[in-house]
Each structure stands twice: as structure tokens, then as C-alpha cells.
């Protein structure tokens, strides 16, 4: 039947010798691309499984006490992640606290207030900020930011707010607060960009209605845009938080590498990520290695949960990215 279809050419110019297509090409290609797509799923499973397997020893030995103890003692085989959990959350939340208002203000400026010729260059510059590698920011942090903080703001903090436990410790500059500032710089671009998208999604009709009522610029923004975008802003903040939780190199370089918990933001510490990074030079095996994997597992869980929440909030769970993000 097929042959007839190929050759049967009634009343047409002399037949062309075109190769019959065959089904093999399509089948192979489809299978190949399917395999590659499945690899992503397999990769996710692999990451989770590898970390679980690696932390098995530590999980069975310490159980929940891993999360509530703050000793990290390779000599005595006693490990607890509390310091790092504390460091991770404090630095990330503080970074968010610093970055969120700045990002929102910037996003408002870019979508509502900026003249046309300013918009694109500003957006480009923010995207370039996002492209700065973490280690480069870390270099700048060590040699420029930390000395400046140590000589300027930190002594002031100690002088005027030293009564608070938050600021009670000698400041070498390599501390949780410095790490938070660097993390804040790193998450500014992503929060700004998502917030911009969220604000841009507000239909102009809303703004026009508010203007028509005689509202001032700020009132329009507040009534028409911000109120509409609360969920999206939460999502942007969550995404920023997710990014903050995973920040490694810049944090490692300025956080001071201490395994002790301290209430003071001006004292050194460690995050889950920076602790893992700091251990890299050691040859580890057995329990210490397993404890390290458990830190990684916790880090993974915390970033996964945050990312899922963030995507749910901005309605992008498994959805296509918006162009221009």
C-alpha cells in the first residue's frame, strides 16, 4: 500500500526520487529527547537520594538531637547543627529585612515613576548586579566592605546600641551582620525583578481609576498596585529568601567561621552552606563526613521548601517562565 502511495503519480510530472521517510527517525528522536527530559527528574531524585544516603550514619546516630545541639566536635565525635541553622536563618532573614524594602522601592520606582530613558539602563544594571559571581563579591567584602564596617558603622553600633545583646561583642568585622549585608546585595536583583513583574501585571485600568479619583502618585501606587500585589510580593520575598539560604561563597568569606552560637550579630558564626564550604579541605570519613552530608540535606530541604512556597505564591509552580524575567 505504501509503495503504491509512493509511486502512484497519475497525471503529474516525472516522479522525483525522494527517499521514503521511514518511522525510525521520528521514534529515535522522540525517545532520545524523552530520555533527556527524564534525566532532569532523575537528577532531582539522585540529589535527594545521595544526600540521604550520605547522611544515613549521622541521622541514625544523632536523630533529632542533631538539630538542637550546637557542638561541632570532630575530636569527640559529637555533632550538632544548631549553630548553623541559627546562622542560616538569622543571616537570611536579616538580609531579607534589609533587601525587601529596598527592592520594593526600586521596583516601584522602575514601574511607576521612572522616565522611559532611565528604565532600560537601570534594569540592565540590576541584571548585571545579579551576574556578579559570589566569590567576587566575597573579595570585595573582605577587603572593602568589612574594613569600612569595622571602622565606621560597627563602632557606632557598639557605642549606641551596645546595651542590646544583639550588638554586644568586639567587632572584627567578620560577623553575621556583614554576611547579611552581602547576602542582601546578592538578593536585591531577584526580588526587584520579580516585584517588577508583579507590579507590571497590575492592569493600567486600576491605576487610571485611582487617578480619576484624584489620588496622588503615591496613593495610586498604594491603592491600585501594592494592594493588588501582596501575594506576589510575598512570592518575591520567598524567592529572595530561597536564594539567600543557599548563598555560599560570599558568606564563607566574611562570616568569620565560628561554630559557637552567639546572640550578637557582630560576632562570627557560620551558616549551613558556609560550614560545608569551610570543611572542604579536611579529609573526612565516617561520622564527620556523614554529619556534613546531613548539613547538606538540611540545606536542600530548606531551599526546596522555600522555593516551592515562592512558586506557589507567584503562581508559577511548574509553569513557563514569563519572558523578560
Amino acid at each position, binding site marked *: 500500500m505504501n509503495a*503504491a502511495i509512493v509511486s502512484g503519480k497519475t497525471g503529474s510530472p516525472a516522479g*522525483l526520487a525522494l527517499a521514503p*521517510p521511514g518511522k525510525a527517525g521520528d521514534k529515535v528522536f522522540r525517545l532520545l529527547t524523552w530520555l533527556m527530559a527524564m534525566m532532569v527528574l532523575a537528577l532531582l531524585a539522585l540529589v535527594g537520594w545521595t544526600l540521604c544516603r550520605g547522611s544515613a550514619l549521622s541521622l541514625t546516630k544523632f536523630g533529632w538531637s542533631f538539630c538542637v545541639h550546637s557542638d561541632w566536635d570532630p575530636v569527640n565525635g559529637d555533632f550538632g547543627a544548631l549553630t548553623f541553622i541559627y546562622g542560616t536563618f538569622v543571616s537570611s532573614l536579616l538580609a531579607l529585612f534589609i533587601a525587601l524594602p529596598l527592592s520594593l522601592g526600586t521596583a516601584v520606582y522602575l514601574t511607576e515613576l521612572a522616565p522611559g530613558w532611565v528604565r532600560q539602563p537601570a534594569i540592565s544594571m540590576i541584571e548585571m548586579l545579579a551576574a556578579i559571581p559570589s566569590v567576587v563579591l566575597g573579595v570585595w567584602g573582605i577587603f572593602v566592605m568589612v574594613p569600612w564596617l569595622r571602622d565606621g558603622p560597627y563602632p557606632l553600633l557598639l557605642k549606641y546600641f551596645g546595651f542590646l545583646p544583639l550588638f554586644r561583642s568586639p567587632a572584627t568585622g567578620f560577623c553575621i551582620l556583614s554576611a547579611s549585608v552581602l547576602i542582601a546585595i546578592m538578593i536585591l536583583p531577584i526580588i526587584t525583578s520579580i516585584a517588577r513583574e508583579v507590579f507590571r501585571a497590575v492592569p493600567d485600568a486600576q491605576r487610571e481609576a485611582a487617578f480619576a479619583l484624584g489620588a496622588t502618585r503615591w496613593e495610586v501606587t498604594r491603592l491600585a498596585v501594592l494592594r493588588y500585589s501582596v501575594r506576589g510580593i510575598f512570592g518575591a520575598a520567598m524567592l529572595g529568601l530561597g536564594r539567600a539560604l543557599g548563598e555560599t561563597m560570599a558568606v564563607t568569606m566574611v562570616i568569620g567561621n565560628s561554630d559557637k552560637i552567639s546572640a550578637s550579630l557582630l560576632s562570627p558564626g557560620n551558616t549551613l552552606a558556609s560550614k560545608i564550604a569551610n570543611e572542604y579541605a579536611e579529609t573526612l570519613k565516617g561520622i564527620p563526613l556523614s554529619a556534613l552530608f546531613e548539613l547538606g540535606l538540611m540545606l536542600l530541604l530548606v531551599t526546596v521548601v522555600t522555593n516551592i512556597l515562592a512558586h506557589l505564591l507567584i503562581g508559577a509552580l511548574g509553569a513557563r517562565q514569563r519572558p523578560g524575567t
Partner: protein
Amino acid sequence: MTNEIHSPALQSAPPAPVPAAPAVPAPPAGSAVTFDVRQLNVWFGSHHVLRGVSLEILPKAVTAIIGPSGCGKSTFLRALNRMHDLVPGARVEGRIALFGQDLYARDVDATLVRRRVGMVFQKSNPFPTMSIAENATVGLRLNGLRQKDLLQERMERSLRMAALWDEVKDRLHANALSLSGGQQQRLCIARALAIEPEVLLMDEPASALDPLATAKIEELILQLKQDYTIVIVTHNMQQAARISGQTAFFYLGELVEFDQTGRIFTNPRQKQTEDYVTGRFG
């Protein structure tokens, strides 16, 4: 509905009962019919788009398909080259035979069908990353033809057939999008002709073009019909009257009337046809 009538006369069950007298004598038995369509039904999901369509399309002639929007004209056209295979949820039932061979038989490769039945679309769509020459030969190259001299020869032939050669022969390597709308459409025609199909399906090919370009396309169609079977969907009745030998009028998914073009436009048998061609609805 089991009585198949082999003549371009009344088909299916129109709303009002009408005598089924054939106005045109059936072609002598054994002569070639390009498409023999019998009881064609098409569904998109649960939406029954084409109902029991039966007709015959003659070779070396232009057959026009007319009717108001949404009547199933394009659906019918696309059934002729199995384009509905590409639409998930589409279901085609009935028989369409191309020169006697059932196109929808189980072991028939749709890709091969489409090499014999070419299609030109409403909005011209030359491939944007390719030059004029590459567009004209893409069907040949991607189907395995490699010899440069053959490609060159076929390209020139198809561009001439599409009445485009003289306008582009000096800039064959320019990007296809540098052509005007009408030229792009003729390039698409050339592209379709290059693989030497036996049939050319045209889905409102000139509707996006200005009158001058439209006239060129119509002139081209009249030329091409000497060698090809042409089926053209058009919402422009004057165009159908100008270029086609036979016209089929569709309404709400059914074939209402199928007859010589002259007859359809001057003395249609069905009231619906008359209402449509006189402009009472559109």
C-alpha cells in the same frame, strides 16, 4: 446515507427536502477522479465539525470551497492532506481516496500523503532563517535530495511556475522575509510545488494580500490548473466565480451543494446556497 452518488450533484440531507436530480452527467466510468470523498466526518473532541461530506474532485481543474465562517471549509481542506493527524483530539472518519488509494488506510504514512498533496496557507509563512533559494528547495533537501544541479534546476522550475523567478533571480540568497507579502505567498507556492505534488490545496491564499497581489495569485492559479488539481478555500465569492470550475458550498459542517461554478452562482439549487451567494448572510 449509504447510497453513494458519483456525480457532483446533491449530497447529504439538507434541511429542506429537494429532488435529487443530477444536473451534470456523471463522468464516464473509469476516468480519473483526484479525490473521491465519501461520508467524511470530522470531530474535534466532541465537537462534530464536518458531517457526512461526500464529493469528487476532478483533476487539472480548480475546485472552490465556499461558505460562511466556521462552516468547515478549512477542516475539509485539511482532511485532504491528513493535517488533522497533527491535532490531538481530532478524529476523522470516512473515506478519502487519492487517485483510488485510500489516504487514511492503516498502513499509509501521512508524510508520504503530504508529499503528494501540497498546501499553501492563508498567511504566507516562508521559513524566516532561510533565503529565498533555501525556502524554495527546503522540501527537497529535507527529504533527501542532495545533488546541487538537480536542486538548482527544480528551484528555478518551481519559482518560474510560481511566476516569481524574474523578480528574485538576482537575489536568491536574500532572506525570504525581504520579499513583499504577495511575493512571499508566491514563494510558498513555489516551495510547495518544488516537491512535485499532484494536488495543491490552498487555504484562502490571497485573503491577506492587496488586490494587485491577489490578481497575480489568481492568474497563477489559472496557469497551474493545467498541470495540477487545485482545491481552494475562499471566502471571496467573486474569486471563486473567477477561477474555479466547480464550487462546493458548505454550511454548518455540511456540504449543501456542489456543482459547476456557473450554476452555483447563477442558478443554485438550494435556497441556502442562493441566500449565501446573493449576500443575504455571510
